[in-house]
């Protein structure tokens, strides 16, 4: 096919924030995750664990605890002392209510999801009623000295157990009185250190399970106040625990990065008497496992090393599917990098600032695998800090490299980039039209004349960019029928005639763009039951290529309003099994203008040139056959060629784009690079060191 000059970029210093807490949706279909920077993400189990929604963080809004309540409403509480509800369709933190007890350490919803209990710094446990449109303070339960670090409702909602330092107590919800107070380090001789109860759970049998900083998981009979069982799972702290719905399995996260499963098993085979047994240890994380969750079929853990690990319980899985494999997610399922093809600039998005880099260049050419000498080094042009506590939602650099835009939760900013010689200056475009909701995605048109801003309720704003540095709101494109979800992906066509938009309810709509006299909705791509992870419009054929989170690829002809014959052929034949079983979704699609049959796409672990002119591979052929092909003589290759040309050289891949015909840019972020920037984990003695 050909050789590419690949700009291999490893200077994107992204450090993903650690996972602070997890909350499984009661019906087990979604997982909410909060990071240490306050960002909240929602993963959809049904759509290959796609990171469906991301609500960027806020400097002042840390999230200590998340919980689902009243159906699909998501609440978060943190050390700011506020209880925040998240607007999942508008992708923003909606309402904040002061908890009134200082920093909130924990929050749990009762079994029906009608009440929230919060544990506060001042030792109080407060009950809030979930009402339509918000929450309402209901009452205080018995307050004792010592911050309440963890809480758990009894499944029948009659009691709450609250864990503090050195003790936990059981509170009767109706009377509000503490009915039992148990010292957890009572048995330890000469307890010099304080013992923090990090996580607690109240089982329906009346057993209290606590995980504490001594690395113990203990089972208490709260009525008697006696210790039933104690398992020391770790030499360092046990930080988190989650109980399965059937209450027969527990996952515990520790500060060494190890997680353990405990199972309630019969003492003798077939016997009635059951005991908790520590069954499986896992070491997926290098840092503290602050959050664990137990879905019906998997153990889920999130660590400060930013990894989310989903470890399926094989005994609970009936058939081999996507769910049957261990999944690890470190990087977001969306792009944080944008590229100015013509100007060869890269814009990196961090949580609170942007970096603009200019790529280096070379004058040499070489053979496969060679590293070419640089005649010009890459250059860090400018760092643009976002003002205020809000984190950046999205950013984009225009193809010509003269415009940079970004948006936070409340404001949209546009800058004009002036390159004069070596110096680069940024000038803020004044009087940018005020947009009420945040922009979820920014996209410049190919000729850098206009800017598309993805917005809430399925609408897209079109701005006209004016020289030398102005901006005018042209109009707002809205879907014909109402749409409650925000648009999170945009794809303009190269000729400027079309714009494809994807909103959260998984509908990708195609609307004519600015140059079209009739600014109305053109058509809607048939709904598919998985989220769109990337899409792009082919520059010459105006075919819309869509990648779904279940790894399906579809090609939709916009002029004909139907799937193309190639797409139908792919669907009828089915994609290669190895392709469908991949780990991460496609996050970017681009095309080679010189070779219309080529589609370039990438996920975190591979980049692929999809050549539509070649036959599709079937399951018996090798999908990743590049290295085999390279060994073959030229004449023998023809028989082995298939449509998927996959390169796994660059990992983990955060971004890939085609700069010109045979020049690629790839942005890698080696795990080791950012691991070194994380705080040191708990020191463990390793054998042989």
């Amino acid at each position: 096919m050909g050789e590419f000059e690949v700009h291999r970029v490893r200077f994107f210093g992204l450090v993903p924030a650690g996972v602070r807490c997890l909350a499984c949706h009661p019906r087990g279909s979604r997982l909410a995750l909060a990071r240490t920077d306050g960002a909240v993400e929602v993963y959809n189990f049904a759509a290959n664990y796609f990171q469906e929604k991301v609500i960027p963080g806020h400097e002042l809004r840390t999230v200590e605890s998340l919980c689902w309540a009243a159906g699909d409403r998501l609440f978060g509480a943190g050390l700011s002392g506020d209880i925040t509800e998240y607007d999942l369709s508008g992708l923003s933190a909606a309402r904040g209510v002061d908890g009134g007890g200082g920093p909130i350490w924990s929050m749990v919803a009762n079994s029906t999801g009608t009440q929230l209990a919060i544990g506060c710094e001042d030792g109080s446990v407060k009950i809030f009623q979930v009402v339509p449109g918000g929450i309402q303070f209901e009452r205080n339960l018995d307050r004792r000295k010592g911050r309440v670090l963890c809480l758990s409702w009894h499944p029948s909602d009659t009691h709450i157990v609250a864990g503090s330092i050195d003790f936990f107590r059981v509170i009767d919800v109706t009377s509000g009185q503490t009915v039992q107070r148990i010292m957890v380090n009572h048995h330890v001789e000469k307890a010099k250190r304080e013992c923090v109860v990090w996580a607690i759970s109240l089982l329906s049998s009346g057993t209290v399970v606590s995980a504490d900083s001594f690395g113990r998981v203990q089972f208490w009979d709260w009525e008697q106040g006696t210790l039933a069982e104690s398992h020391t799972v770790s030499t360092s702290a046990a930080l988190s625990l989650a109980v399965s719905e059937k209450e027969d399995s527990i996952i515990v996260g520790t500060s060494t990065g190890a997680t353990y499963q405990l199972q309630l098993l019969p003492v003798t085979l077939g016997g009635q008497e059951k005991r908790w047994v520590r069954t499986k240890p896992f070491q997926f994380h290098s840092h503290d496992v602050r959050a664990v969750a137990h879905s019906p079929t998997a153990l889920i853990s999130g660590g400060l090393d930013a990894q989310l690990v989903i470890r399926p319980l094989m005994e609970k899985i009936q058939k081999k599917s996507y769910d049957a494999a261990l999944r690890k997610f470190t990087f977001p399922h969306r792009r944080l990098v944008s590229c100015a093809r013509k100007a060869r600039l890269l814009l990196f998005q961090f949580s609170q600032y942007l970096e603009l880099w200019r790529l280096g260049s070379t004058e040499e050419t070489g053979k496969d695998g060679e590293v070419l000498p640089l005649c010009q080094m890459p250059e860090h042009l400018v760092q643009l800090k976002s003002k205020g506590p809000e984190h950046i939602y999205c950013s984009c650099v225009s193809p010509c490299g003269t415009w940079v835009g970004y948006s936070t939760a409340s404001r949209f900013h546009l800058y004009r980039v002036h390159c004069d010689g070596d110096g680069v200056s940024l000038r803020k475009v004044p009087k940018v039209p005020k947009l009420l909701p945040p922009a979820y995605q920014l996209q410049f048109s190919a000729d850098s004349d206009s800017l598309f801003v993805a917005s809430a309720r399925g609408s897209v704003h079109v701005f006209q960019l004016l020289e030398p540095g102005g901006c005018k709101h042209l109009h707002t494109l809205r879907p014909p029928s109402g749409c409650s979800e925000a648009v999170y992906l945009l794809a303009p066509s190269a000729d400027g005639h079309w714009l494809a938009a994807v909103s959260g309810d998984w509908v990708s709509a195609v609307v004519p763009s600015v140059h079209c006299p009739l600014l109305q909705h053109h058509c809607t791509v048939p709904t598919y039951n998985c989220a769109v992870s990337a899409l792009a419009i082919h520059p010459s054929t105006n075919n819309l290529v869509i990648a779904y989170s279940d790894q399906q690829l579809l090609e939709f002809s916009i002029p004909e309003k139907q799937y193309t014959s190639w797409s139908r052929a792919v669907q009828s034949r089915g994609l290669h099994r190895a392709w469908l079983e991949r780990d991460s979704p496609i996050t970017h699609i681009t095309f080679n203008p010189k070779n219309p049959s080529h589609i370039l796409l990438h996920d975190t672990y591979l980049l692929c040139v999809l050549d539509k002119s070649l036959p599709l591979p079937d399951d018996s052929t090798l999908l990743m056959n590049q290295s085999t092909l390279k060994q073959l003589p030229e004449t023998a290759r023809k028989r082995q060629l298939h449509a998927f040309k996959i390169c796994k050289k660059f990992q983990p891949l955060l971004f890939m784009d085609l700069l010109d015909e045979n020049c690629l840019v790839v942005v890698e972020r080696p795990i080791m690079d950012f691991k070194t920037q994380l705080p040191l984990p708990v020191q463990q003695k390793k054998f042989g060191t």
Partner: protein
Amino acid sequence: MRRGQRNQGSARGPDHPTVPRCDTVLRTAISDQKPLGCWSLKHGQILTCPVVCNFETHEYIAVHDDKVLRIWKSEDISLDKAFKATLSADVYRIHSLPHGGLLVLFRGGGVRTLDELLEAPQQEIENVISGEAIRWSGAFMEDQQPVLIFTTEKDEDFFVYVQKPKLNSLHKYKLEQQESAKPLCFTAHITNQTVTLLCLYSNDSVYQILIPLQQDTEEEEEEKEILSKSLLLNFSISQAVLKGTSLVALDKDHIAVLGSLNAPKKQPKECLTIWNTKFQTLQTSKELPLGTSGQLWCYEEKFFLIHGKVLTVIMYKCETSSLAAAVGKLKCSQTPDVSSFMNWNTLEDEELVVSFQSQESVGLKAESRMNLRSKKSIDAELPFDSLSPGQVLARFKDAPNYLLETKFRRLMARAPTPDLQATVGGVVNVLTDRCKNSKYYPQDFLQEIVETWDLSYSLCPDLMAVGLEKKDMHLLQTCLERFPDIPEEITYACLKAFLSISEAHLENTDVNLDSVICYIDVESDKKEVKTEIVENGFSAQMDQDMCGTKIPKESQSWSDDESCPVGPQKAALLNAVLHSAYTETFLLPHLKNLPAQEAVLFLRYLYYLYVKCSGKVNTTLPGIRSPTINQIMDWMCLLLDAHFTVMVMLPEAKELLSNLHRFVRAQVRFYSELNKIEGSLRELQRLNHLRESHTYSIEVLEII
């Protein structure tokens, strides 16, 4: 003599019993286990007596609705159009006698030959018996005269009639009464003008009744003679008691009894037993765990019985009765062994329960008729797609070749079910069965099946044997590449076939060349291949004779390592063998049988591969399914092991072996040197890695 006397109705020899059901007649070939013909009555008509075959005229005779006689031949399709005669009296049974024509026994005790009846179907039939019901009948030939014996019952009294229709003689005897026991089953045989009637009584005993045939004196005719009986056998095995249901006399000393063995505190077990009456011993027994209908037929040293849902045929052999045999000391005992069985609901289809209820058991008639009708409709008109795979296999086993393939294709195109794999295996087995010893060979179809389905050797054990027989190299190659469980014997047979087949033959064979295309340049090797053919054309003997002159020539053509000693087709086939899984211990004995010339050729090819592999840095050959260096080395070792002495002796192997040795020695030296370098390189690499914190580089990436 025993032919055609039992309930089942006689047939065209024991291999082709007609199997009657209440409204359908099925003719089955026992040896092939397949039905040969099937005729059905119209709805509402019932067969009232077993169908018999007249083996002089090869006609079948059936009676339905008591009075209607039907006669047809096997080529007739419909019973409705067959010859029909309505008689004036109810028929009890038709007996077919070899060389004796057919005898029709009426319910009233009258007997006519079939020919007489056909002349005047409406003739009056006399009533011989009054108010008695016939329980059993048998027909024999004695002195070229048919003899008909039947027993009747009236008010707990049993009577025996002996009729000689040709002589118009009839004798009636009364059976001696037995307290608290009733006769259940009769069987008879005639020896020396004496009828020996054996009677199974409900008190688990067999009685013998002797009836002389010669007493033709007129005076005694009217007198009802009372027959005395003698106890022949009592079925008691230690504490267990055999409740017999059917009885068959095998020879003068042996009887077979089908019944259930009731042991105290145990489940009754159905079993077939053979007893020696002379020594009163149980000769042998066979358990029938699936249950039987209680009926037992016996023709020409074969038992026929219904075991579960299948008609089971058991061969037996009765030795002359001797004490040694009776007490089980005879060397070759007469164990009955199941030779074949006919299964017309293959793969257990619940809806096809065919019940072979006794014709006598009137109570069950209605029910069985219902079952049979449903069976018939399924058999006849069921659309193809609703047939279960097993049915399709059974049904199309005998279909013409052209039909077979299309039907099986349709079968395999069905939505995948858990047992589809087994079905495909069944399809292949049907095909290979047909291919054996016949010209039929659906090469493309078999190839397609093997390529599309993940079969294994054990699923279709005959496939590769057939492939070897038909010299289908491509099929063998595919099987070797795909089957995980090929026995070493077959692997060896393939290897031998591949090595011995001529290159010229292979030139025109379609063989998958994927594994060799990348390292053998087909074009440039053509010339080499040609010379090789000539060399292989020599017989082993000629080679022996010419070896003196041959060595130098061969070493010349061989000395350059570049040329492949075999053609690409052969190489591809050999690669398939290299790829197959094997266990050394099992393969080695077979490998020893490889002819020396072929062993040398194979070794040469292995050597060639080895050299090719070593040419690459990663010692892997390019291409798909090309052999790995480990496979090459393993086979080389095996081959040298198996033919060590031969190789030492064989002059033409000398050069090859010394070349090989030289090469291996060089490799060993080379690798030991590499070992040293590796240590230093590893250290360098480690240091390099530390420095490799480049944040930016421009690299060249080739995507093919």
